C-alpha cells in the first residue's frame, strides 16, 4: 500500500513540476507585447548605440576640412593585425624647414578587430571609434578606406 501511495505522489509531484514550467511559458505567451525581438532595419531611427561602441576607426574633420593627424605612425605600430598603413609626405614650411605630414591614412576595415589600441595610443587624438556598424559591402576592396579626406590638412597647433 505504501508503495502505491509513493507511486501516486511521485506522479502528482512530477505533474506539478511540469505545470510550474508550463505556467512560466504561459505567462509569456499571454503577454505577447512584451516580446524582446527588435525589428532591425525598421527600428534604425530609434536604435541606440552606445557612444563608446567600436564600429570603425574614423578621423574627425572640422568644418575647414582639418584633422589632427601628424602622421607619426604610432597607431600603425600599435595595430595588432596591420589594419593601418600610414603614408607620409614631407611638407616644406614657410621658413624653409621640412615637416612630416600625413599623405594617406589607410585603414583596412576588413582586417580590423576593433581592439581600440590605435585610438588609445594616438598622441593627438586624431582617430576615434565611430558607431557605424553597417559595414556590409558587395566588393571587398571598398573596405580599404583612406581616413583623411582629400585636400585636408592638419589643424593649427597640433604637434607630435
Amino acid at each position, binding site marked *: 500500500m505504501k508503495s502505491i501511495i509513493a507511486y501516486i505522489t511521485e506522479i502528482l509531484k512530477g505533474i506539478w513540476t*511540469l505545470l510550474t514550467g508550463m505556467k512560466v511559458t504561459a505567462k509569456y505567451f499571454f503577454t505577447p507585447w512584451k516580446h524582446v525581438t527588435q525589428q532591425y532595419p525598421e527600428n534604425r531611427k530609434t536604435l541606440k548605440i552606445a557612444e563608446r561602441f567600436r564600429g570603425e576607426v574614423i578621423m574627425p574633420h572640422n568644418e575647414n576640412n582639418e584633422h589632427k593627424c601628424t602622421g607619426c605612425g604610432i597607431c600603425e605600430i600599435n595595430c595588432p593585425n596591420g589594419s593601418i598603413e600610414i603614408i607620409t609626405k614631407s611638407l616644406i614650411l614657410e621658413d624653409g624647414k621640412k615637416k612630416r605630414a600625413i599623405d594617406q591614412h589607410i585603414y583596412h576595415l576588413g582586417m580590423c578587430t576593433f581592439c581600440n*589600441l590605435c585610438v588609445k595610443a594616438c598622441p593627438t587624438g586624431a582617430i576615434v571609434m565611430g558607431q557605424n556598424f553597417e559595414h556590409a559591402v558587395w566588393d571587398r576592396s571598398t573596405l580599404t578606406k583612406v581616413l583623411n579626406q582629400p585636400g585636408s590638412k592638419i589643424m593649427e597647433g597640433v604637434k607630435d
Partner: protein
Amino acid sequence: MDELREIMITTDEIKTDEYLINMGPQHPSTHGVLRLLVQLEGEIVHNVQPHVGYIHSGIEKMAESLSYPQIGHLTDRMDYLSAHQNNEAVALCVENALQVEVPERVKYIRTIMSELSRLASHQLWWCVMGMDMGALTTFFYGLRDREDILDIFEETCGARLTVNYSIPGGLMFDIHPNFQRDVKAFIKKFKTKLPEYDRLLSGNVIFTERTKGVGFLSKEDAIAYGVTGPTGRASGFSCDLRKHRPYSAYDKVNFKEILSDVGDTYARYQVRMAEMWESMSIIEQLIDNIPEGDYAVKMKGVVKLPEGEFYQRVETARGEFGVFIVSDGKKNPYRVKFRSPGFSNLFAINHIAKGWKIADLVAIMSTFDLVIPDIDR
C-alpha cells in the same frame, strides 16, 4: 526460476556490433566545430574520442610576434564568453612581471566585470543546456537576460563580446557614468528572472530524471584530469582560484565557493546556478564601493617584460585559465602558452560518458560548457 536466471545470463552475453558515428564537426550539440568520434553499441556509448583542431588559429604562435597589450585582444577570441577574464589574466601577468601596482579602482572594476561576464557566460550556458535537452524555449529566456549584460558591456567597454577592456596597467576606459545604475538595475531584474529559470527547467521532472545520477565524475578523477571550474567543483574539487589565490578585489568580498560532492550532471547544473547567485552577491558588495582614482597607471609606450618566466592563473567561467609567458626581455614574448580550462575539461569526457546513452553524452557535454576556440586556440 532457474530457467529465468539462465535467460538473464544469456541476454548479458548478447553482443551487437559496435559502430562508430561522428558527432561533429557540424553537429548541433558540439557547440562549434568539435568532432567526437563516438563508439556505440545500440544507444550505449562505449568510447568517445574528441578530435580538435578544426579552428586552430595559432594564437600562441601569433602572440610571439605581438606586443603585450596586443596579446590581450587575441585572448578575447579564445574563450569569447569569458573574454574579460582572459584579458585580465594577461594584464595581471604583465603587471606582476613588471611589478606594477594598479589602483584600487581598477581592481574593483575588473572584479565586477569578471563577475558580469561570468554571469553572462552562465546565462548562455543555461540556455544552451536547455536547448541540448530539447527545451528550446530556455534558449531565448537566457539570451534575453544576457542581452542586458551585453548592453552594459557595450556602454562601458565599447564592445559586446570581444571587450578588450583590461589592458596591462589598468583599463581601456573608465566606467561609463551610467555603469553603476545599469548594473544595479540588471541585478534587481535578474533576481526575479533566476527563480524563473528554476521553475522552468531545474525543477522539471523530465530534466531532473535526465540529469540526476548521470555522468559521474569523482573528485579524484576531477583532480587527475585537471577538470576545473564549476565542472570540477561539482565533483568536490575545491578549485576556485578566487578563493584560494585571490587576485584583483576578490580578497575584499565575502562569497561562498560552491561545492557539491555528488559529481553528476545535475550537480554540475546546480553549481552553475548557485554561482550565478554568488556572482550577483559579489557584484552587489562591490558596485557601491568603487573607490575614486585613476583607471590606469601610466605605462611606457613599449611594454618590455624582464627576462624570466611568468605564470598567472585566473578563474574564468569555465575554470582555471593560465597564462604562461616566457620573456627574453624584448617587447614581444619569447613564448606564450595559454592553459585553457576547456582543454583539460574536454578530455575527461571519455572517462565520464562511457556507458551512458547518446542523449546523456549530449547532456554531459552541455554541463562541460565547452567553448571550442578556447580548446583549439
